[in-house]
């Protein structure tokens, strides 16, 4: 009896370690695709109502159920798809959208201009609290649906909106509607490609402005595929071809969106041919992917931009030279190749190469690795003795944060530690309270392929994702002027000037650009993953 238990505990501990180490190869029998259908792996979508869905998994599913107004050609110029013609008048303020005739929703309802107006009004109306609501803020009348809170986060409540209809949306006839913007914006056509701008059928609403119960689980769209059964949470969403679809018809007959909690398990299914496409191979599997998948392991460009933000409200990071010194202490290329095995590339600009207006190395010297100069600059400007990089532990950031800290420690001869927070939301909360959480790891995926999307939300004084309290009147003005400019070329020129201000001030350290690193099974061919990390369902084919 004596001593039996410790032995057993040690044995259990050892057995568990073995179990956990081996659990990456979990198998699952369902739902092996049959016939001309494919299985694509995603994470559990946060929402599926288009105006509320802003994560990449829901974007993938919505893309199969809906047909966008415009899409992008190879040069990232918007081209009409569900729209027949989009024209603009009055100096880029009034946009007229004419729809293609003959399209129907999956329940047989014809697609009309009113469907767009209803959906957009629902999305913009503040009490509906839609995640994609801010996309409508360029449309005239948005402010009436979203009254400003008079004292920010203070006790005073914002006034109730007086209306739930944006004044800028006007129906001309069944297939035509007019969008008036509150300020001119030359690139509005690019913005409406996003899934937030999809139409909703009459059947979606139980009464005016109220979404019918259960609609999100049983979406009715205007796209090439319709739902087969409901959304089975944490398991799958099955879609099949919609017979009356009048647009470009995909080559596969159906898609099973298989939902994974663990991307390593999805990868194991991919290797076993139980999963047809995985759009993002997890970093821990990258080393083995070329051997496991061979030709079926592919890369393509995407819009991900990864960076570290400075809490500029803290005195020790107020000096731009300190920020530049820390940036120069980091060897981006080494981390991209050693940690990410080439699945990322070093970033030396503030916008992604996928948007027009991108200039290689617009950041200049502060983004070049130069440990000697970095240390001199750091010491001259009295940088802090200890640097802390805070990251959310659920995002798989430990490896590169550790490596970055090792580089900073070696270059600047100061201590550097990686601090973990359980979730990004916790970091956001601490930032809002201006607590000292050190440097913060951040990432950005564009919503529409415009340079402006990398500037205003991230560094604008009221930018939705400006977490670091940096603000520059000159920057704000340039971004606004760019948005109002008559031609895209003129816009880009202004935005590039704004980007130059960032290079002088370094409110953030650009680190890396992402890439899609995807893999597919032996059953499929013609697999393309687009800028938004979505599988191109119109090209995808199964091998007979």
């Amino acid at each position, binding site marked *: 009896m004596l001593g039996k238990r*410790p032995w057993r505990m*040690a044995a259990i501990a050892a057995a568990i*370690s073995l179990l956990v180490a081996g659990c990456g190869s979990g198998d699952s029998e369902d739902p092996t695709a049959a016939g001309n259908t494919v299985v694509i792996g995603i994470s559990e979508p946060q929402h599926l109502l288009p105006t509320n869905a802003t994560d990449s998994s829901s974007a993938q599913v919505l893309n199969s159920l809906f047909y966008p107004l415009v899409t992008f050609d190879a040069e990232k110029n918007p081209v009409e798809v569900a729209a027949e013609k989009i024209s603009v008048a009055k100096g880029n303020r009034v946009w007229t959208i004419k729809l293609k005739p003959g399209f129907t929703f999956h329940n047989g309802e014809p697609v009309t201009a009113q469907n767009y107006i209803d959906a957009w009004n629902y999305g913009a109306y503040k009490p509906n609290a839609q995640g994609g609501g801010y996309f409508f803020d360029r449309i005239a009348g948005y402010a009436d649906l979203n009254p400003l809170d008079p004292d920010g986060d203070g006790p005073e409540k914002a006034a109730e909106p007086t209306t739930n209809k944006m004044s800028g949306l006007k129906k001309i006839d069944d297939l035509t509607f007019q969008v008036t913007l509150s300020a001119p914006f030359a690139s509005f056509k690019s913005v409406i490609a996003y899934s937030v701008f999809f139409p909703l059928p009459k059947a979606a609403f139980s009464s005016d402005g109220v979404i019918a119960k259960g609609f999100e689980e049983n979406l009715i769209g205007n796209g090439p595929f319709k739902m087969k059964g409901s959304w089975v949470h944490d398991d799958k969403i099955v879609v099949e071809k919609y017979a009356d679809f009048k647009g470009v018809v995909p080559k596969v007959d159906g898609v099973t969106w298989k939902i994974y909690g663990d991307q390593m398990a999805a990868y194991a299914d991919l290797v076993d041919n139980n999963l047809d496409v995985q759009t993002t191979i997890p970093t821990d599997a990258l080393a083995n992917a070329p051997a496991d998948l061979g030709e079926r392991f592919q890369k393509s460009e995407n819009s991900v931009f990864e960076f570290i933000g400075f809490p500029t409200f803290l005195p020790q990071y107020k000096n731009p030279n300190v920020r530049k010194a820390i940036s120069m202490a980091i060897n981006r290329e*080494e981390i991209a190749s050693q940690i990410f095995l080439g699945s990322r590339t070093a970033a030396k600009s503030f916008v992604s190469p996928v948007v027009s207006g991108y200039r290689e190395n617009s950041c200049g010297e502060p983004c070049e690795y130069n440990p000697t100069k970095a240390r001199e600059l750091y010491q001259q400007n009295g940088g802090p003795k200890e640097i802390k990089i805070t990251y959310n532990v659920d995002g798989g950031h430990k490896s590169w944060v550790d*490596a970055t800290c*090792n580089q900073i420690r070696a270059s600047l001869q100061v201590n550097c530690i990686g601090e973990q927070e359980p979730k990004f939301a*916790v970091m956001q909360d601490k930032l809002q309270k201006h607590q000292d959480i050190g440097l913060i790891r951040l990432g950005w995926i564009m919503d529409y392929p415009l340079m402006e999307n990398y500037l205003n939300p991230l560094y604008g004084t009221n930018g939705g994702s400006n977490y670091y309290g940096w603000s520059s009147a000159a920057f704000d003005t340039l971004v606004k002027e760019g948005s109002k400019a008559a031609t895209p070329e003129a816009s880009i020129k202004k935005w590039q000037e704004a980007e130059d201000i960032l290079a002088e001030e370094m409110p953030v350290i650009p680190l890396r650009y992402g890439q899609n690193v995807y893999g597919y099974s032996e059953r499929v061919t013609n697999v393309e993953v687009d800028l938004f990390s979505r599988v191109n369902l119109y090209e995808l084919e199964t091998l007979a």
Partner: protein
Amino acid sequence: MSDPTLPATIDTRPRSLSGDAWDDLRHSKIFWVSSGLALLILLMAFFPTLFTSANPADCTLSRQYAGPSGGALFGFDYQGCDVFARTIHGAGNSLWVGLLATLLAGVIGLFFGMAAGYFGGAVDAILSRGIDIVLGIPFLLGAVVFSGRLSGAGDDGVTAVTLTLGLLTWTSAARVMRSSVVAAKGQDYVAAARMLGASPARLMFRHILPNAFAPFIVVMALLLGANIAAEATLSFLGVGLKGDAISWGVQIAEAQKHARVAPAPLIWPSTFLAATVLAFIMLGDAVRDAFDPKLR
């Protein structure tokens, strides 16, 4: 003239359980091997610089997976850290947590076991059921829940893991203590002391405890091995030591992701962990065998 029937020298030392046990242990090879190993590991834990002069936090990506060179006997890992230096320095945290947790378990076990055994009756019934309840908590589930709850953001998890392990593993110590106290309580010398008017505290600590202590020490040694393994398990599962803390469990968890590319950073800390656990458990076993009269 001496009596020829008697041996030339007579061992006149008083015989005691521990004296007999020591005689036994001196001739046990397992005892010497395991205590030698345990001593080496303790040395490693408290004086890591005797073994390596390299800084375990000195990592450079350019050396990723590089082979052994100079002082780095085991090569370099994913982050370009010296695997040998990290393994040596990892002993400290692993052993420290194991020792503290075992000490905590020992104190709780000693107190509860002795109270239950000495007072008997209702006190025994309540304490023994308490022990049963704690024994009923599945060890790993309990450890994952407690450790996750106790550790706050930003700390390295040492306190949380120590508390968790201590609070979950004191039961065997308490049971052993209880049964040896029950056995010792009935001895004549205890009755004699009681009749001379010794207080319960004096009886417990001066008379019963010394004679009930040997089996307890054995349980402690075995528990130490198990706790070191448990710390590694928790760290591996991500609820143990965190952040920049160096420990074998953390090292193993990190290295297993890349084991197909570079197995060495996984093999070395695993080997050290296995050897340490084995050393303490073997030591405990040897000491138990020596103390157990039934095995004589």
